[in-house]
């Protein structure tokens, strides 16, 4: 594929994603969501992501704690270790790493499921049965992702800080009361708030990209594989890029 064709495909995808967002807004404004489907999707997203979210949160907190300690120890600032972990986990690492993990785990599953439905004509069947694919497939996944991502991120942040506290206290020998006090005094309410606001956006990005890739999936088994890979890659890139702009915007607005 030439660079021009790739660029054209990329812009076409961006256009499709925008139209899908518009259709989601129209659906939310005019059609009552089936909450049973939303709850099922929340269960699917939440439960299926538990292992990756728990492991990612805990080990990120632990390694961040250890690495910060090794640096701070040189300048006798051991007690600042947990403060760094807390701020980084709340505002950046918690939401971004949870977003990337959910994009890999759930985004791929959603793109594969909807893509398979497309190549087996089930999406066409939905349309002939007077059901709009956005109402039936996209909106429940979008709402579920929108509501579940913040919960998963809070879980990841809490586990990360908890695991870091254990590492700091029992492995690195940092004074517990001092480290805890420093952490509380240096973590502003804006840090977790920034992180949680980001997760709503990340959830929306994963749902829209994964559903769009599924709905526009090329024919055949290869097409489904292609759509799945693209869903993960594009949503991960979109999370990383939007994170920078969100950090700049939210810090300007909130601080």
């Amino acid at each position, binding site marked *: 594929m030439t660079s021009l064709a790739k660029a054209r495909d990329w812009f076409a995808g961006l256009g499709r994603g925008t139209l899908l967002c518009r259709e989601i807004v*129209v659906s939310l404004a005019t059609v009552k969501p089936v909450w049973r489907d939303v709850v099922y999707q929340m269960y699917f997203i939440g439960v299926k992501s538990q292992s990756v979210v728990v492991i990612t949160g805990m080990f990120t907190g632990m390694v961040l704690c250890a690495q910060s300690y090794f640096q701070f120890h040189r300048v006798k600032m051991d007690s600042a270790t947990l403060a760094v972990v807390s701020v980084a986990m709340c505002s950046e690492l918690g939401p971004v790493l949870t977003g990337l993990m959910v994009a890999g785990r759930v985004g791929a599953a959603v793109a594969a499921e909807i893509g*398979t*439905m497309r190549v*087996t*004509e*089930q999406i*066409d*069947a*939905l*349309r*002939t*049965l*007077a*059901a*709009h694919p956005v109402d*039936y497939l996209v909106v429940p996944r979008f709402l579920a992702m929108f509501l579940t991502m913040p919960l998963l991120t809070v879980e990841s942040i809490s586990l990360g800080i908890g695991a870091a506290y254990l590492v700091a206290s029992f492995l690195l020998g940092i004074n517990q009361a001092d480290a805890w006090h420093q952490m509380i005094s240096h973590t502003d309410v804006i840090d977790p708030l920034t992180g949680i606001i980001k997760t709503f956006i990340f959830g929306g990005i994963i749902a829209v990209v994964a559903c769009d890739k599924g709905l526009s999936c090329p024919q055949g088994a290869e097409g489904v594989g292609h759509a799945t890979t693209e869903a993960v890659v594009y949503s991960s890139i979109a999370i990383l890029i939007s994170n920078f702009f969100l950090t700049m915007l939210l810090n300007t607005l909130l601080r």
Partner: protein
Amino acid sequence: MMIDVRNVQKSFGALRVLDRVDFSVEKGQAVAIIGVSGGGKSILLKHIIGLIAPDAGEIHIDGQKITGMDERRLLQVRRKFGMLFQASALFDSLNVEDNVGFLLRREGRTPAAEIARRVGEVLELVGLEGTQKKMPAELSGGMRKRVGLARAVIYRPEIVLYDEPTTGLDPIAADSIDQLISRVVDTFQVTSIAVTHDMRSARRISRRILMLHQGRIYADQTPDEIFKSTDPIIYRFVNGIAEPIGKNTFV
């Protein structure tokens, strides 16, 4: 006219699949569209129900122009249609009962008990009583087609479209599907269009046959006329005779 297809054109890249296709179908008529595989029959069927938009031309359903119509308004028009897909297109995650009663459940106007009764009734019509709790993966190809047929007719549509209803089935299963389609036409007095390359099936389920050849309607005749035709293209298709292969053709 129930269905009016006016000068419809459709291309995919450089390939022109439909080239000024023009025909209409009256209410209650049973029509078969025949033609070679890959000749655009299924594409034409999907144009009629608004799943694909034409590049040029218009399609009118019951006097209403559906070309260029917004998808949400099209959903209302599609309520008039039932469609049986080539590979049945049953929803994998739903059992037979939920597949067949899908539209009635989604609309939310019919009580659950009434839906269950109607699902039982229509499954009996297609000879699959008692299979309500089975999943699509547990069914054979012929059974899946029957469930697809039940799903397409449960809400009493005015038009039923069949995309290759007998393809991939053994002759006995294909025959039973033909009988069911005839039964549906007689029972519900629906307008029906079946796309097929199975000539025996076309003869059994229709009173009028359209032949699609090189993107155009090449013939529009009764089944008897088609079977007696001496036109070389129709004759070869009906009798399954390939174009003569030249001496220098490498096979």
